[in-house]
C-alpha cells in the first residue's frame, strides 16, 4: 500500500532508532497533542525503545476525552426525548455521564445510531422523516468541516428534521493555555497531523516564537521517529522552529476552503473542557443564520453543571500532569470493559492506550 508500506518497513526505519539516540544530546520533554499520535506511539513500540533523556507526555487531543460530564449528561438527556434519534461516532457510545452512558440509554429504548460520517446522519434523517435526527458533534478541526458541509447540504435540500448538537472544539487556544502552566515544563510539541491539515503548520509559529520546538508529523513509525529526531535536534541546537514532516498531507497555510466553510456555519464560544475547565473562544457554536440546525435551539435542553466522576484523574492526565498507571482507579475500577472516565473509552484515550498496549519494563 503506497504511503503506508514505506513508512513501516523495518529495514528502512530501524536505523532511525540509532539516529534518535545520537541526536538526543539534551533532555527533551515533549507533548504529543493528538490522540491518534498517542495510540500510534504505543502501537509502534516506540515507548519501549525510547532513550531515557526523552520523555513523552500525552496532551488533550482526544475529542471524546475532553468532552465534559456536563455535555455527556446533556447528550443522554437529548437521546431520551421521545421522537429524537441521535447519531454519534462510535467512540462516544460507552462514555459514562453522571449516571450511565448512551449505551445504557439505548438499552432503555433511546434511539442511538453509530455513524461514520455526519452525512450518514443526514441520510438517517431522510430515512426517518417522522423523527428529529440529532448529530452529536464531538471533535476538533478534523471533523468540523464535515459537519459544516452536512449542515450546508441539509439547508440546500431543505431537510428539516436534522440538527447538530455542537460541542466542537479548536486546538490552539487550549494548547496555549496549557503551555503557560509552569509545572508542565514542556520544551517540544509533536503537533497533530490531521488537525494541521486544516489549520496549517503555520498555526504553531507562536509556540516556536516562545521557545518550543515544533514538528508536525504523520502517524506511521517512520513519521514518528523522524519527528522525534527533528525535535531532539532543534533542542540540541537551541533553535526552536516549526518543521513540517508531513507535507504529503499538511501545508503551511492549511485548507482555506474547509476553514471558510466552518466560518460560514460556526462562531467561537467559550466552552468547557474536561480537566481544563472553561476556555475562552475554544468551542464552536452554530451561527443564528443556521439556527434551524442547532439542536440547542430546536430542543429544550439545558447543559447541567455536572461533576466529573469521583477519583477519576482524566483531567490531570489530559493536562499531561500524571500518567494513567498513577490513577488509583486504573485497571481496577476503571477498565475498557467498565470505564469510569472517558480516557479509558475512546480508542484515542491515553488510559485506553496504556491499558491496551501496556509497557514492558
Amino acid at each position, binding site marked *: 500500500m503506497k504511503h503506508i508500506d514505506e513508512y513501516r518497513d523495518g529495514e528502512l526505519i530501524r536505523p*532511525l532508532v540509532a539516529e534518535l539516540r545520537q541526536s538526543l544530546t539534551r533532555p527533551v520533554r515533549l507533548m504529543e497533542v493528538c490522540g491518534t499520535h498517542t495510540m500510534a506511539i504505543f502501537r509502534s513500540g516506540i*515507548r519501549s525503545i525510547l532513550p531515557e533523556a526523552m520523555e513523552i507526555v500525552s496532551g488533550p487531543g482526544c475529542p471524546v476525552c475532553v468532552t465534559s460530564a456536563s455535555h455527556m449528561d446533556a447528550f443522554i438527556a437529548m437521546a431520551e426525548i421521545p421522537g429524537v434519534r441521535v447519531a454519534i461516532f462510535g*467512540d462516544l457510545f460507552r462514555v459514562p455521564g453522571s449516571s450511565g452512558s448512551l449505551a445504557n440509554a439505548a438499552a432503555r429504548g433511546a434511539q442511538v445510531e453509530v455513524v461514520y460520517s455526519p452525512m450518514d446522519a443526514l441520510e438517517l434523517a431522510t430515512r426517518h422523516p417522522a423523527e428529529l435526527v440529532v448529530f452529536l458533534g464531538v471533535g476538533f478541526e478534523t471533523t468540523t468541516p464535515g459537519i459544516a458541509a452536512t449542515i450546508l447540504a441539509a439547508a440546500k435540500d431543505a431537510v428539516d428534521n436534522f440538527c447538530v448538537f455542537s460541542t466542537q472544539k479548536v486546538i490552539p487556544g487550549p494548547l496555549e493555555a496549557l503551555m503557560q502552566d509552569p509545572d508542565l515544563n514542556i520544551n517540544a510539541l509533536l503537533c497533530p497531523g490531521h488537525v494541521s491539515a486544516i489549520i496549517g503548520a503555520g498555526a504553531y509559529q507562536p509556540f516556536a516564537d516562545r521557545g518550543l520546538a515544533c514538528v508536525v508529523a504523520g502517524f506511521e513509525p517512520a513519521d514518528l521517529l523522524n519527528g522525534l529526531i527533528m525535535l531532539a535536534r532543534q533542542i540540541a541546537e537551541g533553535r526552536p522552529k516549526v518543521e513540517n514532516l508531513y507535507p504529503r498531507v499538511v501545508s503551511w497555510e492549511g485548507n482555506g476552503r474547509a476553514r471558510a466553510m466552518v466560518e460560514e456555519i460556526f462562531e467561537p464560544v467559550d466552552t468547557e473542557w474536561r480537566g481544563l475547565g472553561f476556555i475562552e473562544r475554544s468551542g464552536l457554536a452554530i451561527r443564528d443564520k443556521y439556527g434551524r440546525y442547532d439542536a440547542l435551539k430546536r430542543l429544550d435542553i439545558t447543559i447541567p453543571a455536572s461533576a466529573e466522576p469521583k477519583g477519576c484523574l482524566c483531567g490531570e492526565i489530559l493536562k499531561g500532569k500524571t500518567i494513567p498507571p498513577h490513577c488509583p482507579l486504573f485497571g481496577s475500577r476503571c477498565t475498557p470493559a467498565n470505564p469510569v472516565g472517558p480516557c479509558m473509552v475512546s480508542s484515542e484515550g491515553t488510559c485506553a492506550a496504556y491499558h491496551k498496549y501496556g509497557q514492558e519494563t
Partner: protein
Amino acid sequence: MSDKTILLDHGSGGLASQELISTLFLKHLTSPVLKGLEDSAVLDNQAGRLVFTTDSYVVDPLFFPGGDIGKLAVHGTINDLAMRGGMPLCLSLALILEEGMDLDELERIIMSIAEASEASGVPVVTGDTKVVPRGKGDKVFINTSGIGFVDNAVNLSSTNGRPGDAVILSGTMGDHGITIMTRRAGIGLDGDLRSDTMALHRLVASVLSVHPGAVRTFRDPTRGGVATTLNEIAAACGQTIVLDEQSLPIRSQVRAACEILGLEPLYLANEGKCLAVVDGDRAEQVLAVMKQTEEGKDAVVIGRLEQGKAGRVLITTPIGGSRVVAPLHGQPLPRIC
C-alpha cells in the same frame, strides 16, 4: 407454495410446516437419515471418542460477499469440532424464522447450507423449524450442533503449549470481520473484501495424519480475532506468546479498510482460519503440510511461545520495539478522526 413469505402457520407443526419441510428443506438437504423426518437421527456406532458442539448464528446482513448465514452455520460448527481434532460426522439444523420472511431468501439460505454441507461431506441429519411473530426475531436465527469422532491418540488442548512452540496462522486475518463491518455500516469501500468462511476439518485431518504428535492445539480465531484467541491460549498454558508484527498475513484491501476505519486486523473475526500451536522443532514440517491444502495455502508462522509472564501476548514491532497485545474489550468501534 403460493405465498412467498413465512407465515406463523409454517411453524405450527401442521400441514404448512410439513409443506415447507418437504418442498423446501428436503429439496436441498438430501441425507437419507434426515429424509425419514423422525424425531431424532439414529447414527451408526463408530470406534473412538465423540466430540460434540453447538453454536447459534445471528448475522446481519444475512448475505455478504464470500458467504451468508447458512455457510457460517455449517462451517462454524464443523470448525469447532475440527479444532479438537474431531472428524465431523453430522450436523443438526434448527431455524427460528420471523413471520413475513421472504421465502426466496430462505430458500437461498437452505441451498447454501446444502452446498456447504455437501462440499464438506458433513450431512444435516436432523432439524427443527419454529416461526415467531413479526418483530420478535430478525428474519432468521440458525442453530447447528455437530457430532464427530476423535482418534484416541489425539489430545489437543490449549493447556498443552510449552516454551519453544511455534504459532502458525493458516491464512490471512480479518477478512470476515471487515467484510461484515463495512457492509453493516453501509460503507461503500471499493475493493475485493470477502468473508473467508470455510470448513477446516480437512486441513486439520491432513496435519494430524502426517504429524500427529507435533500439534499441541488448534483454535479458530472467530469473534475477538487472533489477538483474543492467543490471549486465551497464553492463559491456558501459562506461557508468554511473542508475535512478529511483520509476519502477520493481512490482505492489502483488508489493511486499507482497517486504516480508514481505525481498526486492527488482530481483533477482527475470522471464519475460515485456524491457529495451530506446534512443537517448535517440527513447525516447518507442519507448515509445509498445511500449505499443500487449499485451506492453508497462505499459512505462516506468526510467533512463538516463550517462558515469561503467564497469559501475556507481546508483539515485536517493525522498529524492533515491543508492546502488549491485549484481548478485545467490548465491540471494535471505529475512531472519530
